[in-house]
């Protein structure tokens, strides 16, 4: 079950990063970047 949840996190992460790259408004890019941080930390099982 852990790996399923990690896969969900990875799935979300990929889409957010993709969205962030495509986004032209820098404020929204920063917004997305903020969301990326906890997802990365959870993917790496740091937090």
């Amino acid at each position, binding site marked *: 079950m852990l790996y399923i949840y990690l896969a969900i996190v990875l799935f*979300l992460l990929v889409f*957010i990063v993709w*969205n962030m790259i495509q*986004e032209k*408004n820098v404020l*929204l890019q920063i*917004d*997305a970047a903020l*969301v990326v941080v*906890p997802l990365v930390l959870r993917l790496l099982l740091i937090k």
Partner: protein
Amino acid sequence: MKKKFAALLALALVASVALTACGGGSAPAASTPAAGPTGTNGGTMPGTSQAVGDASINTNSDYTFRTSDSNRVVTENGTFTKDNVPGPVLVTSVGQSADVSMLDALMKKVGAADYTFNSTAAADEMANYGTIIIACGASSKGLGAAGISQEDELARAQAIVDAVKDSDATVIVAHLGGASRRGALSDQFNNMMLPCADYIMVVEDGNDDGLFTDAATDNGVPITLIYSIADAVTPLTELFGA
């Protein structure tokens, strides 16, 4: 643009909720279930400025505390001696609080010999004893541990009252749980047992409304007020000590 922004915000919210929800929980502060009993044998803090005797925590302004840190055992309304406690001796409880276990420990501490400890002794056993010490105080956990319902314990207490009131047995009512052991159910037991007491022993901070001293006065029986539960060693040594 607005749709993208809204979608991103929604995604952020989902991610945050998913991660913070997993990271915490409604962890209760206490490590035992919330439903608790009426309290335990609250001994007072020794050597503290807010201990028993301090009027600022006296809930009944008419009552004057007799005991203090320097005067830990006070007996009123006459004397009660070893001659008043013929054997055999029974230690029992009404209300099944942990105070009866503390009383048992106290009896062992003073070297009392030949007493029977039975917290759930039935009324028909009372006739076998010359002295019956009853630790009054209710505890839902104690009742649960003993496998007795409140109603059954009240019935048992009433049956004990009926058994002892016309007998020659000496009845000692002990309330050792202090203020934290007072409450509606505990007081039901107290009010049932006090009229048949020949002697009362009480941790004084459980008497801040004068319940026990008034009962002693009304019934003309001696009462020993003690500062903390540990001070029960003094009267118990006099009565039952080796």
